């Protein structure tokens, strides 16, 4: 049996009898060919025959037999298409405007929905993603934080989940490479792979037994590293490599698709087993991220209940509040921050699509009114109404198809260009692809509008007497005008809302950039160096290494200051914990907390952080000198209100014994984002509290990037085997911290601009139409001595009227919907009068501009001519 579809296609263009003979011949030969040449060849041959039958050019009297029947709907398709093409080509302006309007509306809607779909709706790229959850400490998504290692072990013993895996960031420089390269990775429980459905492409995964500290060090590498560094060697498993000066055995290669759990994780090249002990990972360190798989049939709520109950049964620490746990769907933890932004954008693009539709309706209606007379004439001389309808329909469909194609192109370009934007991966997009259902939806929507409004004159011709149109068709204002005015008012209102949104987002962004960050960060670059490994075994070795880094870098010409910090502002990482204050006792749960940072002398200077009181760290603040500490203003205000903090003693309480004396006060930093509230922070010196890894901050008097080769050279001279990583300038960090806001502003701003343009064409269209209709009246007025200015005023009044009604509705809309956008604002209210006034002003100016040219034309007509014509 030949392929059914091919049979259908082969017979599609033939009359039923002829089809029978032709298909019979084809089948006869198909059977023969199957026996002689095989089924595949026969099918190929049949398909070729079918397509040629479908595409044949020379018609016969048996092809499309309904041509002979009465008034077939599609028989004139060819001539209709030709006629419509001619008409559309004759008014290129109209055609271009309609096509472009459609393309923008459809393209923007499809692109934005594609993003929303990819972030919020598309299944996560793991096995059975709906069963994967995120158990964490906390009560909801905003306050949730990671697990400690002892916690992970206890939670596994509760047996609430099918499997529970903990993982944390890890990285290593690989030994033996020409240029020291730092590779990102994680250390994880072996169950991570079964939870996510990861299978190795070469070798094996590691086992639960290999999680123990006592076993040989093993590691899995990414497919990308396998190809890049090992030439895709199929016998790589068993190979020994050196990471951070330690020997590791590669046991397998991970599949190419698995390089991250969250879309904004860096691509992992190394995945190793946990290898933790309760000693090196005590209960106070809650640093682990989790994934777990629910048991079959188990709901998320039940899992959370069981886990909470089990956690409460544990012997509670009397000094701590009772433990709270929360189980989140994996997606929730990923998109919680961006959901509001994404839905806001979806709303904005919805407005844009509405504006597009209104504008399209307006344009088509105007054209329809203009053609009423033409159609009346055709009807009067005996044209078949169905023919006219089919012809108008063809025109609308052709416009929609062109617009749809343009929209597809725009959406495709946007998706291709935006796919890897950091703001999108941060928003939860793993893989951005075009959303076809939405494309089809937008095309159908605009098609419906096109058909509805494009055919208005033909439909109207059915009810109205032809003679009226014949007589007055070109002159009398029609009922369609009111509809058009309504559409323009709607466009103005929606545009105002988009403009207000863009204005509010823009003002928020400006206020954010204007905010006192606590540091200047101007001409600052930063990178991170880690001394992890055998060659720097003791704390003194770390300190010695970093001292020489600072010494050597500060000798480079153009470097103004160098400093170290354990946590760099806006770099997405922070450490906090409890603090002790000498001579004070606190009830459980009310102990002072602070962000804890280890810095070096010179850090405050390099970052432009002013010393408010007291002094900076000095090179003399070493292990042999009295221990000192610097606090932030918020810490001082919270715990030393009304007294002098300098000279008081507090305990850093993190790998440091005893109390340290407060010697200085610095401002609060916007550490996690420019919209951060002031957080108490404390600082100790790296010479008194050593660490193996630091961010280096370099303040320069020249563009910071230009000094990078020299800096690299100095570091290489100290130790060529320590790679630097995360090289960035402060400017890029600030820009990145504004990512989602920036994206929001850009997108809403672009939509508002398009909306403004469309509203302007709408106003222009309506005012121009009215002005043309009133040409005779204006001529009479001018002939009777009216001033040109007053006639211009008459025309402009309509433009202003339309705009003002639209503005009123739009402002009401902004006030009603303002709360939706509130979460994305900073320092402005949704009802911000300055923004609203500015936006109204801009729209009004646009309306005036759109109305001016028809007004000028109205007074430029010669009264004598008008009167003669009349």
């Amino acid at each position: 049996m030949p392929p059914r579809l091919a049979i259908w296609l082969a017979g599609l263009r033939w009359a039923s009898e002829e089809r029978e003979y032709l298909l019979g011949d084809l089948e006869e030969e198909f059977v023969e060919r199957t026996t002689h040449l095989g089924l595949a060849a026969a099918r190929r041959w049949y398909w070729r025959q079918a397509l040629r039958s479908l595409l044949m050019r020379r018609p016969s009297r048996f092809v499309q037999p309904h041509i002979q029947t009465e008034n077939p709907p599609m028989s004139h398709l060819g001539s209709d298409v030709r006629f419509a093409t001619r008409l559309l080509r004759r008014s290129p302006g109209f055609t271009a405007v309609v096509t472009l309007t459609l393309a923008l509306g459809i393209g923007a809607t499809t692109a934005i929905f594609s993003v929303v779909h990819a972030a919020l709706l598309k299944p996560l790229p793991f096995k059975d993603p709906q069963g994967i959850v995120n158990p964490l400490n906390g009560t909801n998504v905003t306050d949730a934080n990671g697990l400690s290692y002892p916690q992970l072990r206890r939670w596994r013993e509760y047996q609430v989940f099918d499997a529970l895996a903990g993982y944390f960031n890890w990285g290593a420089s690989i030994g033996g490479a020409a240029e020291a390269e730092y590779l990102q990775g994680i250390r994880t429980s072996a169950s991570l792979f079964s939870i996510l459905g990861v299978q190795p492409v070469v070798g094996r995964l590691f086992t639960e037994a290999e999680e123990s500290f006592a076993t040989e060090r093993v590691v899995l590498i990414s497919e990308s590293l396998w190809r890049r560094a090992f030439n895709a060697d199929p016998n790589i498993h068993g190979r020994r490599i050196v990471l951070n000066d330690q020997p590791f055995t590669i046991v397998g290669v991970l599949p190419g698709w698995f390089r991250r759990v969250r879309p904004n994780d860096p691509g992992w090249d190394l995945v190793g087993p946990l290898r933790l002990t309760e000693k090196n990972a005590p209960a106070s360190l809650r640093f682990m991220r989790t994934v777990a798989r629910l048991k079959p049939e188990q709901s998320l709520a039940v899992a959370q209940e069981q886990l909470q109950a089990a956690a409460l049964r544990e012997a509670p620490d009397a000094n701590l509040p009772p433990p709270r746990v929360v189980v989140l769907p994996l997606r929730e933890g990923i998109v919680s921050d961006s959901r509001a932004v994404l839905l806001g954008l979806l709303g904005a693009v919805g407005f844009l699509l509405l504006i597009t539709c209104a504008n399209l309706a307006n344009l088509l209606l105007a054209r329809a009114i203009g053609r009423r007379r033409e159609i009346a004439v055709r009807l009067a001389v005996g044209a078949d109404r169905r023919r006219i309808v089919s012809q108008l329909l063809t025109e609308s469909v052709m416009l929609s198809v062109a617009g749809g194609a343009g929209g597809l192109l725009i959406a495709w370009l946007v998706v291709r260009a935006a796919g890897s934007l950091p703001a999108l991966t941060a928003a939860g997009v793993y893989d951005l692809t075009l959303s076809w259902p939405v494309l089809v939806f937008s095309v159908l929507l605009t098609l419906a509008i096109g058909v509805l409004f494009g055919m208005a004159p033909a439909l109207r011709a059915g009810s109205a007497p032809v003679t009226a149109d014949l007589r007055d068709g070109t002159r009398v204002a029609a009922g369609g005008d009111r509809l058009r005015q309504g559409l323009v008012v709607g466009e103005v209102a929606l545009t105002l809302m988009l403009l207000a949104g863009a204005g509010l987002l823009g003002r928020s962004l400006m206020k954010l950039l204007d905010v006192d960050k606590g540091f200047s960060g101007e001409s600052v670059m930063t990178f991170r160096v880690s001394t992890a490994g055998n060659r720097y075994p003791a704390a003194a070795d770390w300190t010695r290494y970093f001292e020489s880094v600072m010494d050597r870098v500060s000798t480079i010409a153009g470097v103004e200051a160098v400093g170290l910090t354990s946590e760099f502002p806006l770099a997405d990482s922070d450490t906090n914990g409890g603090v002790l204050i000498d001579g004070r006792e606190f009830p459980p749960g009310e102990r002072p907390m602070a962000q804890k940072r280890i810095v070096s002398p010179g850090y405050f200077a390099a970052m432009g952080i002013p010393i408010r009181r007291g002094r900076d760290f000095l090179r003399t603040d070493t292990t042999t000198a009295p221990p000192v500490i610097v606090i932030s203003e918020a810490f001082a205000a919270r715990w030393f209100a009304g007294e002098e903090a300098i000279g008081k003693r507090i305990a850093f309480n993190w790998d440091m014994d005893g109390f340290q004396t407060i010697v200085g006060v610095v401002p609060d930093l916007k550490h996690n984002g420019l919209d951060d509230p002031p957080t108490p922070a404390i600082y100790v010196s790296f010479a008194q509290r050593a660490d193996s890894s630091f961010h280096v901050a370099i303040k320069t008097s020249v563009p910071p990037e230009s000094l990078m080769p020299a800096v690299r050279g100095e570091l290489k001279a100290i130790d060529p085997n320590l790679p630097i990583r995360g090289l960035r300038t402060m400017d890029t960090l600030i820009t990145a911290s504004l990512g989602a806001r920036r994206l929001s502003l850009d997108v809403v701003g672009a939509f508002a601009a398009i909306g403004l343009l469309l509203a302007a064409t709408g106003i222009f269209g309506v005012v121009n139409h009215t002005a043309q209709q009133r040409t005779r009246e204006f001529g009479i007025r001018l002939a009777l001595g009216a001033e040109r200015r007053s006639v211009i005023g008459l025309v402009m009044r309509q433009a202003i009227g339309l705009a003002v009604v639209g503005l009123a509705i739009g402002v009401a809309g902004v006030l009603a919907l303002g709360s939706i956008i509130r979460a994305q604002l900073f320092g402005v209210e949704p009802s911000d009068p300055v923004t609203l006034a500015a936006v109204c002003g801009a729209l009004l100016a646009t309306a005036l501009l759109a109305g001016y040219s028809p007004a000028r034309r109205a007074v430029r007509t010669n009264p004598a001519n008008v009167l003669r014509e009349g």
Partner: protein
Amino acid sequence: MVHNVKHMARANTALQLGEFEQLVLLALVRLGPDAYGATIRRDIEARTGRDLAISAVYVTLDRLETKGLVRSRVGEPTPQRGGRRRKHVTLLPEGRRAIAQACRAFQLMTEGLRLV
């Protein structure tokens, strides 16, 4: 008058046989009275080596029938054809004359030429 126009049209078609029409007519001469779409298609394909669409054969047969050069009759359905009937085509004397004329013209034109 009408008759005249028709006659002229006949004479013209005889002279204006398309190349593919000639091939189909020649195939019909060879295949005899029981020829039909598939056999014609295969005969031409086998001899000329052209990959031929059945639809082209049907379009041509239809035109030849309109020109009065062939006649068709419907046969019985057969299982190899999926129970579909067959349309047999027979060459009419008019068709035979037309193709003979075309061949003669061709012969006259090619006589004494060395083309390859």
